[in-house]
C-alpha cells in the first residue's frame, strides 16, 4: 500500500488551548480503503485532532494533505468539499424532521425543496443497496432508535459525497447487537473503497474492526501500528505509558447476609415517564452486583433512589431495616447514616463541588460528622489532615488538599470521591460509572479498591455502561432495559453475547433473526417513552 497516496496526511499538527497543549506535533497517514483507529484516553487529544481536520479549530501549526494535495480547512464547509464526513458522538439531527429531510438539510439544491428530496430519495435507495444501510426515508427521527439515527448521520455524510468518514466514539450509545451491525456497515464501506477514521477509547473495538491503529497520549501520537501485529496489552501500555493490568485480580466471592433488598421499585420522572418499573433485586455482604445496560434504561434513576436523591415507590431495606423513599428522611444525609456510601455517576455535577478545595470536598456529604466539627464551627484543620491522609493512601496527584477540585485530572477527581466514600467502610457502596473519563492507571486502582471493599465483607452495587467493567468486577450481573430488570446471571456463567441480548430486552431465544427482534424491542421502548411524554 505504500505506493498509493494516503487519503489523509497530517504533518506536524499542533494546537494549544491556553496553557494546555492539546496536540503536539502530530503526524499521521491514513491510507485509502482502510479503517484507521485512533485510540487514547479521555483528554489525550483525539477529539481536538478530528475537530482540526473537520475545520472546527484552526491548528497553531502543521499541514493537512487530502489525497496528496495540501488543503486548507478553515471551516466544516471546506471539510465537506474535501470529501470528509463526520459522525459526532452526539447526533446533530432535527428530531421532528424525517430521515429524508435530515439528509437533505443544508445540502438543498435550488430554492424548491421537492426536486432535492426526490433526488435524495433516489440516492438513498442506491446507498442502501450498496452498503446495506437500511432506514425508512419517511420515518421521523424521534420515532427511530439510536442505532438508526446513527445510520442517518452516516447517510448524511455519504449524501455529501464523503470519501472519508470520521466516527467519534460511535458505540457509546449502542447495544452490543447494534454495535455489531455498525461494524458490519463500516466493513462494507471500507470494502467499497471508503476510508474510515474510528475514534474510541475501547481496546476491544480497535481489535475488532480496525486495520491500522494510532495511539495518542497527552496530545502526542505515540505509535501507529497494524492492528494484526499488536495486542490489547501493548496498546494499553502505549496509551498509558507503562505496563497495566487489564484484568481485575480477584478471588471468588463469599456472599453473606442480604444487605440491600429492593422490592418493586418504581419511579416516574417530572415529564410523567415511568423510568423504573417494578425493580426488585438484592445485594449480599461480600459481593458485587453489577447492573448492566445501555445508558438511559433506568440505571441512573435506580442509583439516585438508593442514594436519596430521588423519591420513589416500593420498598427498600438495608440490613433488614426499611428506609424512607419519600419525605424529609429520604435524602443523602439519612442514607449515609444508614451506612450507604455513594460514588455518583457524574463526579463533576454531583460527587464534587468543582470550585471547592480538595479538603472541602473530602467533607462533602459528611460535613455533619462530629470528627469534622468542633462545636458550632467546622474543624477545618481536622478535615485537611484527613484529606492529606486519604490523598496519600489513594495516591491522588498532586497530593495538595488546598488545590481546587477542577484543577485535578479526571482520574484524580474520581480518586478523591472514591477515597471519601470507601474510607467510611460503608455497609453498602453504590458506584456509578466508576471509571468514566478516568485514565487506565487510575481505573486499575479504583477497581482494586472496590474489590477489596467487597473482600472486607461489604456489599457493592455497581452501575456501568461498560460491559467489560461489569464482567470483570461483578460477581452477579443484573441487566436493565427500559426500567426493568431483564434477568440476573452469575458473572462466571455468562458472556457478552448473552448480556447483550438482555440489554436489548430479549429474554429468551427469539423465533426470528436476532437483529429483527432487537429492533422490535428498541422501537417498543421508544414508543412507550414518546407516548407518555406526549
Amino acid at each position, binding site marked *: 500500500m505504500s505506493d498509493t497516496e494516503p487519503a489523509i496526511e497530517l504533518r506536524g499538527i499542533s494546537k494549544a488551548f*491556553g*496553557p494546555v497543549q492539546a496536540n503536539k506535533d502530530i503526524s499521521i497517514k491514513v491510507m485509502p480503503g482502510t479503517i484507521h483507529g485512533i485510540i487514547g484516553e479521555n483528554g489525550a487529544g483525539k477529539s481536538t485532532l478530528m475537530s482540526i481536520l473537520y475545520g472546527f479549530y484552526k491548528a497553531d501549526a502543521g499541514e493537512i494533505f487530502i489525497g496528496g494535495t495540501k488543503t486548507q480547512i478553515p471551516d466544516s464547509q471546506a471539510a465537506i468539499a474535501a470529501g470528509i464526513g463526520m459522525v459526532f458522538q452526539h447526533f446533530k439531527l432535527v428530531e421532528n424532521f424525517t430521515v429524508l429531510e435530515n439528509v437533505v438539510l443544508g445540502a438543498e439544491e435550488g430554492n424548491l425543496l421537492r426536486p432535492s428530496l426526490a433526488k435524495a430519495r433516489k440516492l438513498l435507495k442506491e446507498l442502501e443497496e450498496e452498503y446495506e444501510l437500511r432506514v425508512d426515508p419517511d420515518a421521523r427521527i424521534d420515532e427511530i432508535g439510536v442505532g438508526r439515527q446513527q445510520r442517518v448521520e452516516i447517510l448524511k455524510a455519504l449524501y455529501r459525497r464523503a470519501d472519508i468518514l470520521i466516527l467519534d466514539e460511535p458505540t457509546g450509545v449502542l447495544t452490543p447487537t447494534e454495535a455489531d451491525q455498525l461494524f458490519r456497515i463500516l466493513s462494507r464501506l471500507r470494502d467499497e473503497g471508503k476510508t474510515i477514521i474510528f475514534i474510541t477509547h475501547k481496546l476491544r473495538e480497535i481489535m475488532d474492526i480496525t486495520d491500522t491503529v494510532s495511539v495518542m497520549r497527552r496530545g502526542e501520537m505515540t505509535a501507529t501500528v497494524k492492528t494484526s501485529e499488536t495486542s490489547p496489552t501493548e496498546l494499553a501500555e502505549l496509551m498509558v505509558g507503562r505496563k497495566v493490568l487489564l484484568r481485575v485480580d480477584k478471588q471468588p466471592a463469599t456472599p453473606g447476609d442480604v444487605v440491600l433488598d429492593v422490592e418493586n421499585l418504581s419511579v416516574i420522572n417530572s415529564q410523567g415517564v415511568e423510568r423504573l418499573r417494578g425493580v426488585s433485586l438484592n445485594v449480599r455482604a461480600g459481593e458485587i452486583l453489577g447492573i448492566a445496560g445501555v445508558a438511559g434504561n433506568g440505571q441512573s434513576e435506580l442509583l439516585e433512589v438508593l*442514594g*436519596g*436523591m430521588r423519591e420513589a415507590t416500593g420498598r427498600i431495606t438495608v440490613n433488614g431495616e426499611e428506609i424512607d423513599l419519600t419525605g*424529609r428522611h429520604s*435524602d*443523602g*444525609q*439519612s*442514607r*449515609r447514616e444508614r451506612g450507604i456510601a*455513594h460514588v*455518583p455517576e*457524574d463526579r463533576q*455535577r*454531583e*460527587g*464534587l*463541588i*468543582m*470550585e*471547592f478545595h480538595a479538603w*472541602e470536598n473530602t*467533607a*462533602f*456529604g459528611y*460535613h*455533619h460528622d462530629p470528627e469534622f*466539627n468542633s462545636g*458550632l*464551627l*467546622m474543624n*477545618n484543620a481536622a478535615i485537611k489532615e484527613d484529606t492529606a491522609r486519604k490523598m496519600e493512601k489513594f495516591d491522588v496527584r498532586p497530593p495538595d488538599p488546598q488545590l*481546587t477540585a477542577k*484543577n485535578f485530572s479526571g482520574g484524580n477527581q474520581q480518586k478523591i470521591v472514591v477515597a471519601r466514600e470507601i474510607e467510611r467502610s460503608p455497609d453498602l457502596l453504590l458506584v456509578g460509572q466508576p471509571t468514566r473519563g478516568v485514565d487506565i492507571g487510575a481505573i486499575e486502582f479504583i477497581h482494586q479498591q472496590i474489590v477489596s471493599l467487597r473482600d472486607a465483607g461489604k456489599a457493592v452495587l455497581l452501575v456501568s455502561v461498560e460491559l467489560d467493567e461489569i464482567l470483570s468486577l461483578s460477581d452477579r450481573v443484573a441487566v436493565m432495559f427500559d426500567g426493568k430488570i431483564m434477568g440476573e446471571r452469575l458473572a462466571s456463567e455468562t458472556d457478552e453475547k448473552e448480556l447483550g441480548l438482555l440489554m436489548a430486552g430479549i429474554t429468551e431465544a427469539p423465533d426470528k433473526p436476532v437483529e429483527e427482534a432487537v429492533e422490535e424491542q428498541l422501537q417498543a421502548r421508544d414508543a412507550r417513552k414518546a407516548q407518555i411524554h406526549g
Partner: protein
Amino acid sequence: MDRMPHWADAVLVPLISLLLAAILSALVIIGIGEDPIAAFKLMVDGALMRSSGWGYTLYYATNFIFTGLAVAVAFHAKMFNIGGEGQAMIGGLGVALICLFIPWPHWTLALLGSTVGAALFGAAWAYIPGYLQARRGSHIVITTIMFNFIAAAFLNYVLVNLLRPSGAMDPASARFPESTHLPTFNEMFSTAETALFRGAPANVTFFIALLACLAVWLLMWRTRLGYEIRALGHSESGALYAGISPVRITIITMLISGALAGLMALNTTQGESERLILNATEGAGFIGIAVALMGRSHPVGVLFAALLFGFLYQGGAELALWTNIPRELIIVIQALVILFTGAMDNMVRAPLERMFLALRRKEG
C-alpha cells in the same frame, strides 16, 4: 493551573476597573469644561481630609456594608437578591416600633433590641420571595424587586395612617425617645480640646457593620450552614447528592440576607434621623449590589468596596456643593464606577488572564 494568581483577581482587577472608570469620568468632566484633577482633589478633600468628611464617608459606608453583605450572602447561594432596598425599609419599621413602643433605660439595651427588630423585620420581608423561589420556582430577581415597591407603598401607608403623630404634616414617625439615641462619632471621639467628626452622622452602628463582616466571614467559611450555602450555590445537583436540601438552604439564605439588609436601618433610622422617615434607604439597597460585585462577595472585599462608595457619595456631594458640576453628573460618575467594577468585570479580567498566561508560558 489557575488562570491567574489570586491576588490579581482580588486586587488588580478591581483597581484597573476603577482606573478605567476614573479616566472615563475625567473625560466627561473635561467635556463639560471643568478640571477633572481639581474635581478629584475636591472630592478627596471633602471626603477624606477632614474628620467631618470621614464622618459622612463612614456613615454611607456603613449602609453599603450591610446591603453589600446582604447581596453577597445571597450570591453565595447563586441568588440575586435585589430587594435589599425593601428589606432595609421594613427593617426600619422594625427599628421604629422597637424604639417607640418599648421604654428603654439605656441606648445599649435599645441598640440590642432594635438590632433584633431590624434583623427580624428584614428577614421576614425576604422570607416571602425566598419561600416563593424555593417552593414555587418564582424567580428571586422578579419577586425581590416587586417587593421593593410593595415595601415602599406599605411604609407610606404605615407612616401616613398609623405612625404619624397627630397634627404633624410630615409622613414620618414621632421622634424616638432620648434613651434610644445612639452615640455619634462626634460624641465618642471628641476630646475636650478638639471636636472631631463635627456634625457628621457616623455613629456606633459602623462597629456593628464591622462585626457583621466578621460574622458573615465566620458563617460562610467556618460553619456547616455556610458550607451548605456555598455548595448549593455552586451545584444544585451536588447539594442534592450530599443531602443538602435546596429548599431549606434557599429559604435560610434569604432570611440571613434580608436580616443583613434590615440592619442597615440601625444606621439611618436610629442612628441618623432618630425617627422613621420615607425613603430613609436612599438607594443604598441597590448600591449594595455593586458593592458585593466589586467585593467578590467576600466580607473584606465588601468592606473596602463600601468604603469606596462611601467616598464617592460624600465626595460627590462636595462636588455638587462647590463646583458647577451638576448633581446628575455625579450620579453618572458613580454609575461608571458601578459599570466598570460590577457589570463589565470580564472586560478587564479576560485580557489580564491572557497576560498572565503569556507570562507563565515565557517562564516555562
